């Protein structure tokens, strides 16, 4: 009886270890891929479907990924016309943020194109953003819904909102706290498993039950944050 229970616990532990190492390999792969494809420029434009007369805000950042000051030349083209150009010297491991806000003259559904070009001793980069992302013919049936959703929810769905709330630009990183608490709880649950089974410690069992629920809730929150972050990374 005891042997069967022990074998079952061993199987469970082996499965847990396998899942943890699978996560480690996946995260490691993501880390290597992200490091190798690091791009020093980023650009976002809101709203997604601009209306005539409404403000359009193009935000771009030029980062210095190196450990020495870096001088970068840049040009921002809006619908093929040069809107802004310049030279910036960015301190190591820092970035300069630019915002260009203008009143949109295009009718709703007409495509606006933004091109950012940079050149420095680290290489030449460019970033293109088109709004709407697809030609108007393709998304004509979605325009009204998209315009509604972006005008109502643009503040909530913007990169700025996510970064300041959950991102690494915020003072306290929510993601790291959630992960560390989650892992600490898992270690506690693992360490107290035998105590609860053998000695039937009432207090520990009570804590275990409470912490199990907390672990599940934190895990759901964490998965939600990971998916949002991945979506944000893919969109930039």
């Amino acid at each position, binding site marked *: 009886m005891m042997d069967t229970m*022990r074998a079952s616990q*061993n199987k469970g*532990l*082996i499965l*847990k*270890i396998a899942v*943890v*190492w699978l*996560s*480690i390999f996946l*995260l*490691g792969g*993501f*880390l290597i891929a*992200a*490091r190798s494809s*690091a*791009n*020093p*420029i*980023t650009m976002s434009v809101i709203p997604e479907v601009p209306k005539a007369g409404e403000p359009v805000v193009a935000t771009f*950042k030029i*980062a210095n*990924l190196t450990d020495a000051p870096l001088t970068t030349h840049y040009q921002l083209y*809006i619908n093929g*016309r*040069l*809107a*802004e*150009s*310049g*030279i*910036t*010297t*960015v*301190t190591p*491991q*820092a*970035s*300069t*943020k*630019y*915002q260009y*806000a*203008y*009143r949109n*003259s295009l009718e709703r559904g007409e495509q606006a194109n933004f091109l950012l070009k940079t050149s420095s001793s680290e290489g030449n980069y460019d970033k293109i953003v088109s709004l709407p992302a697809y030609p108007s013919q393709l998304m004509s049936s979605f325009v009204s819904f998209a315009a509604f959703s972006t005008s109502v929810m643009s503040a909530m769905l913007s990169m700025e909102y996510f*970064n300041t709330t959950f*991102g*690494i*630009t915020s003072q306290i990183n929510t*993601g*790291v706290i959630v*992960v*560390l608490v989650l*892992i600490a709880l898992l*270690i506690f649950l*693992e*360490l107290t498993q035998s105590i609860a089974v053998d000695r039937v410690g009432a207090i520990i069992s009570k804590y275990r039950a409470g912490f199990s629920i907390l672990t599940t809730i934190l895990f759901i929150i964490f998965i939600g944050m990971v998916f949002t972050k991945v979506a944000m*990374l893919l969109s930039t």
Partner: protein
Amino acid sequence: MLRLRLIFILSLIVLAGLFVSIVYFLPLREGYTETKRVHIIEAENEWILQYDIINREGGDIKYTIVVTVDGMVYTDSTVVKPGKTYTYIHHIYPQQLQEGKVDFALYQEGKTEPIEQATFHLAHN
């Protein structure tokens, strides 16, 4: 059993370390400290040029700001204390614009070349 449990706990610690390293070592562009912010905003009857100078260095730094609106030069200077941000705002009215070319240059004391130089082409709309 004990060995497996130990391996599991060590694996969790490795996973936690990996998460922390992702946050602090992954070169995510959004995560870099912003040392300067340049905004050009089209308002109802004007353009607003806003420039945030953030001093992340140890001592006071003196900056000189030069704005040229179609050849007309405006100069300003300021001293930014460590850890503080100075926001420079310049209003540009349509009657000032002919070609629509606005040059902005930021000089840091002790450096001959501007640390920031931008040209805005405002007449494109």
